[in-house]
């Protein structure tokens, strides 16, 4: 199956233009992770130097991997249901675009701002810790392997969340239902990253590599599965 990069680029460009003209979309995307930051920041900023020792052996920073799981869900859940709601889906589907191309274009367009917001929020957290936390706490908390894990896992986790959100978006006609279910779909990933952060699942390089492989597989499968559930007839007529 040959894919047209021009069609995929057309969808990405169109989506990014719409985001740019609607700043509230990006602002909304940033709200959940900012709320997500409040609790760990309050805890970290309240710690004294005596906590630095035990903190150096924990992986609290990995808790923030929940951010890329939640950030993209809202726009991904809007991807198909939103087109349908604003009446633009039918003209789009009458073009020669394949569903795989359409979905990949939309996923990429969701990934770019999501990753940017997730990295920005993470940077805000690190900056706050560096500036306002006890220096001993900051140096114990900010460990390079965990920062690297955040950088590497953010796009992988975000992509998985996007496919989950888009799968729901392709199945449900109501945008609000789609977004609420999308948020629920992001929770298992948040639970997993929390279990790792609190050392219930001990992070090791081997486990990290296994998780990378699993996420790559899930991201590829997600594309295929969402393409399979994307049914032009049902989306146009609301039947089947």
């Amino acid at each position, binding site marked *: 199956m040959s894919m047209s990069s021009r069609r995929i680029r*057309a969808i990405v460009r169109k989506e990014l233009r*719409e985001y740019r003209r609607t700043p509230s979309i990006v602002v909304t995307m940033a709200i959940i992770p900012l709320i997500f930051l409040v609790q760990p920041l309050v805890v970290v900023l309240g710690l004294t130097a005596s906590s630095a020792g035990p903190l150096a052996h924990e992986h609290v920073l990995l808790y923030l991997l929940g951010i890329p799981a939640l950030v993209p869900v809202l726009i991904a859940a809007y991807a198909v249901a939103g087109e349908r709601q604003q*009446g633009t889906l*039918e*003209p789009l589907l*009458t*073009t020669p675009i394949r569903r795989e191309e359409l979905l990949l274009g939309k996923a990429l367009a969701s990934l770019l701002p999501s990753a940017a917001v997730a990295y920005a929020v993470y940077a805000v957290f690190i900056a706050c810790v560096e500036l306002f936390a006890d220096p001993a706490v900051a140096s114990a908390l900010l460990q390079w392997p965990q920062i690297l894990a955040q950088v590497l896992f953010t796009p992988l986790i975000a992509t998985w969340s996007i496919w989950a959100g888009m799968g729901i978006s392709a199945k449900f006609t109501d945008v609000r239902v789609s977004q609420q279910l999308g948020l629920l779909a992001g929770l298992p990933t948040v639970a997993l990253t929390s279990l790792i952060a609190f050392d219930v699942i001990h992070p090791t390089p081997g486990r990290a590599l296994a998780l990378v492989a699993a996420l790559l597989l899930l991201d590829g499968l997600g594309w295929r599965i969402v393409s399979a559930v994307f049914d032009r007839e049902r989306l*146009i007529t609301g*039947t089947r």
Partner: protein
Amino acid sequence: MDDQDHGRGGPALSVHGLSKRFGNRVAFEDVSFEVGRGEVFGFLGPNGAGKTTTVRTLGTLITPTSGSAEIAGIPLVPQNAERIRRRISIMPESPGLYLRLSVAENLECFADLYRTPDPRERIARALRTVDLADRADDVCASLSKGLRQRVALARALLSDPQILFLDEPTAGLDPVATRAVHELIDRLRRRGVTIFLTTHRLEEAERLCDRVAILNTTLRTIGRPGELRDQLFAKSLTVTTLAPLPDPDHIFADLPAVDGWHPDGSCGYILAVSDPAVAAPAATRALVGAGADVLSISSLHHSLQDVYLELVGTDTPADEQAGRR
């Protein structure tokens, strides 16, 4: 076979016994017709008659339940969907524009989706065709409904389609915007584009279409508007005199091309005729010869609306039928 060579010379659209059901509900059933290349074909019917579903089926958005079709010479089967969509354009009833984007940005997106060569030139040409060249940078949300409809038409023209499906293109437009769309369709017809026009505006179909089909779940009739009138209604002349004729039977009985007559008010008479061009002068001569003061003799004109009402006017409305099924 090269895409461009496919089906050249044959009809643009060929539909045989096509049906679509949604569960127990029949959208349309056993529909067969052909549309020639360069023809403007009107598809008429009441709300819920299956017009839009037919367009969506021919446009590969919906899979038919039974029957077959060839679109631009390509068999309508799922594996040909993309090839078919490359050769057609559908303008849905609602323009479906991205309102936050400009006119040019909307068209740019679709030019890329069709992978049109030289998209800038195509966009400029499409905008010139719909007289919107000076509105390219306007945000679509700022346009009136009529202008949005013209942008949607420009979008449908980007790919130089062999067949253009227009689904209720003037629905909800004011008379000025309607006239602008009609003029555009006329221009496209002159360029040889095959147009499949669904509408329930009968005067629109009569003015624009070479042939029309009337659908009310099943196809009721198909033909040129004039032929349909002739099929359904006897030709007739209306005669009006200043005073009632003393013996009209004597005057009208043996006239050439007059098959019968009946009164229409006290001083009016309707003559059933086989050829108005023969019957009208003969009737005039006979009336003058009988000393009658003739006020008018005219051919009774039946409109496409009369044909339509004759065929579907007594049906249960299609959308009610759909609700019952």
